[in-house]
């Protein structure tokens, strides 16, 4: 059975870093699912089926966490006892917030006038900004082990993924 005490990195045999070879992660993930996926146990007894369901769900959760930059950063921080999104400290830089609010307004206007091209451009911009932020987070985490200093940028990155989701939902609405 999957050893639930192993952390996500250990589960896939990866170094505990923000940056790693995603091809290695993908291969390890597929290898593990090949062993534990419920489809491998469709005619097995109930106990085995239940174990397979739990193990496979655990592998999926670990994979998703390491695959998504925000989740990966938060997870890596949590392994070092740092909570990036502590509810008592949700501060974000003023200019960052202002930029996102303007963006949201522009997106909302574009959605109201059914301008999908404008929405897609905004989506592109947010993604570009997220990528830049991601490399900053990567440097902080991997090169310096600056766990506390990384909290702010991780929160910003998290905020950006929410902006992406919002704009995406607007696009979906416009497209009907």
């Amino acid at each position, binding site marked *: 059975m999957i050893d639930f005490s192993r952390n996500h990195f250990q589960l896939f045999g990866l170094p505990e870093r923000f940056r790693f070879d995603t091809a*290695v992660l993908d291969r*390890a993930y*597929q290898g593990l*699912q*090949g062993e534990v996926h419920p*489809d491998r146990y*469709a*005619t097995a007894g109930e106990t085995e089926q239940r174990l397979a369901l739990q193990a496979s769900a655990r592998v999926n959760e670990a994979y998703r966490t390491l695959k998504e930059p925000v989740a990966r950063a938060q997870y890596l921080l949590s392994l070092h006892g740092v909570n990036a999104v502590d509810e008592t400290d949700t501060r974000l830089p003023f200019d960052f917030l202002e930029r996102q609010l303007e963006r949201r307004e522009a997106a909302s206007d574009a959605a109201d006038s059914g301008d999908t091209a404008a929405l897609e451009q905004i989506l592109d911009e947010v993604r570009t900004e997220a990528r830049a932020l991601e490399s900053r987070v990567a440097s902080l985490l991997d090169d310096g082990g600056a766990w506390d200093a990384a909290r702010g940028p991780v929160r910003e990155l998290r905020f950006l993924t929410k902006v992406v989701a919002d704009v995406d939902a607007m696009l979906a609405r416009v497209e009907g």
Partner: protein
Amino acid sequence: MALLQISEPDAPVPREHRLAVGIDLGTTNSLVATVRNRIPVVLPDENGHPLLPSIVRYGERSVDVGYAAQAMQARDPRNTIVSVKRMMGRGLADLPDARRFPYRFIDEPGMVKLGTRAGVKSPVEISAEILRALRIRAEAVLAGKLAGAVVTVPAYFDEAQRQATKDAAKLAGLNVLRLLNEPTAAAIAYGLDNGSEGTYAIYDLGGGTFDISILKLTRGVFEVLATNGDSALGGDDFDHRVHCWGLEVAGLPPLSPEDTRALMVKAREAKENLTLHSSAPINATLSEGTKVELVLTAETFTAITAHLVTKTLGPVKRALRDAGLTPADIHGVVMVGGATRMPQIQKAVAEFFGQPPLNNLDPDQVVALGAAIQANVLAGNRAAGDDWLLLDVIPLSLGLETMGGLSEKIVPRNSTIPITRAQEFTTYKDGQTAIAIHVVQGEREKVADCRSLARFELRGIPPMPAGAARVKVTFQVDADGLLSVSAREQTSGVEAAIVVQPSYGLSDSEIARMLQESIAHATDDIAARAIAEAQVEADQLVAATRVALAADGDLLDPPARRAIDDAIAEVVRLRDGSDNAALLAAIDALNRATGEFAAQRMDRGVARALTGRSIDALT
């Protein structure tokens, strides 16, 4: 893994090949397929027809399914149910096109029901008639009882629609090995056939549902990246457009149910004709003697259905966006479903993706063929080279209602299944001893815009100050895409867990009752059937355990080995006896005896997978 590694003289011979089928339960037509000599084939009826029209007629004395029912649809429209798939898991309010149908709808909480000559029927019961006909067909052709079936569902089917489909299959006496998404089934048939790697879009327009799945195929792993669709859009809607056009052009008043059905059939024929011809006649004589003589040109047809074609492209764009891809990233577009034969669909898809779509497998059969391949492997007939794996996703987000009527998403759409997610909530009043939990599905922010799946209350929380209780709500979505939810108060140590009984689903006892009723009508003997089912289960479990012992028996110390051997011997001893309860108990005991062994084996498998990876990483 071969099943023939061990043979014991006193044991039931493990069946070399377990009978397993794939079933495509379609809006318009249904099919059943199996794998024979490693090749998937559709099983035809006794007249050689591969398709079974998904039509059920409740006649004066009998229930007819398929062509017999189809022949009566214009004469007895109220008791002849077509397109029942559109009603699966839906309430009357969910059917904006309900007036299109001549049925006597009965609005009931959860799922709509239909009043027929044979009494009130739920869409689940009606679908079960279709599935039962396919099971009987398969058992006749294959000359044996089925070990299991994979039943396909539209990828965009929500929880209620999936649960309804699984209930229908159980009601039809099928052992459901897996619910499989239709586009994914098609991808299996395609991918394994063409041996190709890359990222594919599966565009599946059926009779009443539309799916788009974006899927990556690497090293024998089919990984669905994103799926989207519309579970109320399909070829039916094109027929309806032609029908409406006909009424308008011919200047006809609203028609009787009989004439509506008759004209709808002609509309469908015209649509099908336009696949190969530039115009099609629509000729019908209505009940009052009115003659309808029209000609529908391809141009007009394209014009009156343009909005339907466009309607499919929104989900395509969303799926691509969710997968983080653009049309240029797609290596091939696979067309599935009879409705993709329409030239305007082919053209629109080709334009959108900038490449001609793939049509080399029969769009009517490809889903059933893929399901058969999956069923064959799941049933344990895995042959060398069959170590491919399927990783699918849920189409719609699952969440909980929070303060202010908002939905808090717990499992986001396109999450790979199976998945388990937990979230903690707390009480907001001092001394609060119960908490109401409302489970919803959908992407919208407001609960009112999402589909309500279940409501339940967690009671027995010891009185605590507000905010002190910690209620952990756990969502688990299994490999069929079906959800169970449990809740537990953590701090008090009081375990008050509950598993959701969805309001739209049937309880096990309801299914058992319906099954009994249906069997009572048939010549089948309930007891004989129950014994046969237990025997199939016993054989499967014994065979699976023996394979496991042959592969990993070295993990067990002698007492553990003996316990399992004894449990096997007990199942084998009781298998051909008449005491069914004892056999079921022995099966249960064997299940329990192998629990620890199963865990050890999985551990070894995991270690093996990781070793394989390190070697990979080094080279």
